[in-house]
């Protein structure tokens, strides 16, 4: 299947998803569906760096929250429509990814991971001390009743916007997988020293992956303030994003674009059900346990269990 056909297929699936949610006609479907879509975008973004090049980013929450807080700033200062705010949030997160990567990616992979863990704490400290975006008290965002132009309910609009982002992120991830770039990433993951010796520009590729991955995370976070209408540092930087960002691709399988999608749909839906029926702390415990169980027992995730891992992705 070539790239154009894949994008067409994605669009058809996206339209069918929206149509199905609309046919059920319950506002909760859009509420819950938004979260699952947001996790598909986050998990796929994480996988562009983590799955393709093998560098682990524990700071998903930081990149995500930077996108969300960019929207808070833009909302206060400007009148931009949301689809324009998202790329700006993406640029902010992408630049932070580039900076962190530039300082740490020349060293062993573990240092990058540790830096991203610490990054989450520091960005949260900065936001907590920044009164303009509400500081530790948080910021209120008034959500419009109706979407501009389309005239549909705003939650449906957010759902639609996130669906659009998912199409873009998935198309990008799959295009990378099948390009020279993807093979370059894979050489870094498999043997960085050998790749470097064979003339692969490893640092440049790693920086590209970090920037792209961070930017998509920022874009996924940008609509959040309109969804929650009240954003404080504790919820924006919630550990749930960091752990889900890592758990979803690893549970689904990191070798192909399909893995994070499976992981995000599975864990995302599970958490939506569990949050309603049991407590939210307990459902995070379930995610943590699944992460540990999968990395020990099924290193190639669900894709690996069904034997559809790397081989089919390359076909």
């Amino acid at each position, binding site marked *: 299947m070539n790239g154009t056909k894949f994008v067409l297929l994605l669009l058809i699936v996206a339209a069918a998803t929206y149509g199905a949610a609309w046919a059920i006609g319950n506002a909760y479907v859009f509420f819950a569906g938004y979260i699952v879509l947001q996790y598909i975008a986050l998990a796929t973004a994480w996988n562009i760096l983590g799955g393709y090049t093998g560098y682990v980013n524990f700071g998903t929450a930081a990149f995500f929250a930077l996108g969300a807080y960019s929207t808070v700033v833009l909302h206060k200062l400007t009148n931009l429509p949301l689809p324009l705010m998202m790329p700006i949030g993406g640029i902010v997160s992408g630049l932070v990814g580039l900076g962190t990567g530039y300082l740490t990616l020349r060293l062993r992979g573990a240092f990058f991971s*540790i*830096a991203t863990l610490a990054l989450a704490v520091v960005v949260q400290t900065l936001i907590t001390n920044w009164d303009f975006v509400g500081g530790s008290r948080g910021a209120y965002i008034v959500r419009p009743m109706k979407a501009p132009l389309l005239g549909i309910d705003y939650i449906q609009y957010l759902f639609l916007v996130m669906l659009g982002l998912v199409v873009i992120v998935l198309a990008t991830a799959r295009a990378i997988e099948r390009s020279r770039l993807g093979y370059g990433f894979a050489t870094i993951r498999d043997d960085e020293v050998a790749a470097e010796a064979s003339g692969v520009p490893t640092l440049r590729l790693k920086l590209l992956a970090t920037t792209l991955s961070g930017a998509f995370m920022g874009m996924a976070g940008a609509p959040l303030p309109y969804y929650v209408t009240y954003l404080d540092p504790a919820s924006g930087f919630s550990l749930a994003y960091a*752990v889900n960002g890592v758990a979803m691709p690893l549970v689904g399988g990191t070798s192909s674009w399909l893995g994070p999608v499976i992981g995000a749909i599975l864990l995302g839906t599970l958490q939506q059900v569990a949050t309603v029926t049991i407590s939210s702390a307990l459902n995070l415990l379930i995610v*943590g*346990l699944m*992460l540990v169980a999968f990395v020990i027992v099924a*290193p190639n995730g669900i894709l690996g269990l069904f034997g559809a891992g790397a081989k089919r992705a390359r076909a």
Partner: protein
Amino acid sequence: MEMSLELLGNAVVSGLLLGGFYAAVTIGVSISFGMLDIVNIAHPAFIILGSYIAYIANTSFGMDPILASVIALPAFYLLGMAVYQVYYLAFERRGDEALRGLAFFFGLLFITEVTLVLVFGVDYRLVDAPYIGPSIHIGAIELPLRLLVPCLVALAMVGGLQLFMARTFLGRAILAVAQDQLALRLMAANPTRIKRVAFGLSIATASLAGAVLIVIQPVEPSIGRDYIGRVFAICVLGGMGSFAGTLVAAMALGIVENLTATFYGPSWAPAVAFGFLLITLAVRPAGIFGR
């Protein structure tokens, strides 16, 4: 002018004491990450676990928190050995430490934190001991016992470990693993067994570190994350496996952090460690004592 000089002196002295405590928190990572090359990012979670054990022993049985942590040392040692065994079988043997091994420790960090939240809730917990509260005064300098006792405990622990590594056969074997595992294998020694012991030791230090943590400040499950940046910044700056380097780097961070808190406000302190870490990684990844 005299006032601010006094403020400065006090900030430096309590920074030194705080740094001693940071050395206790970091020494376990200096062993696991610095010597054994195991990126145990879950170490702070084990420290918080130590804090809660000291808390239970203190509130339920009225036991001294530090004494309680000494009694808990063997249990932490065994826990560490068990964790290493799983890590070895599932990741190290497969050569899969980089991606999934890291995710494993991240999962452990997360599971420990959420379990503590489920059991104890998110309230701050604190302990009671005769040395929490009073201070010694030397001229204008104040030495709060709440900081002095943890610093002394930390120094004793670092000193004891240094002696153990330098003087005993097992200690030297651990240093040998840190230097060259292949050479050790060629001499028919089993590096895995030595690493298991060393990792057990590194987790055992978390018991004591946890007790002194809850002596210094009230503890809730998520504060462990604040220590990840600090611990690894100190470990790298101190030259990875070096204990003396760890101590010096910990005290340097303690002083800088305390000066920041005194002159700019305590809410900025967590950012200092990260700045330390990034500057170290960017400028001198071998640390101040590195080769």
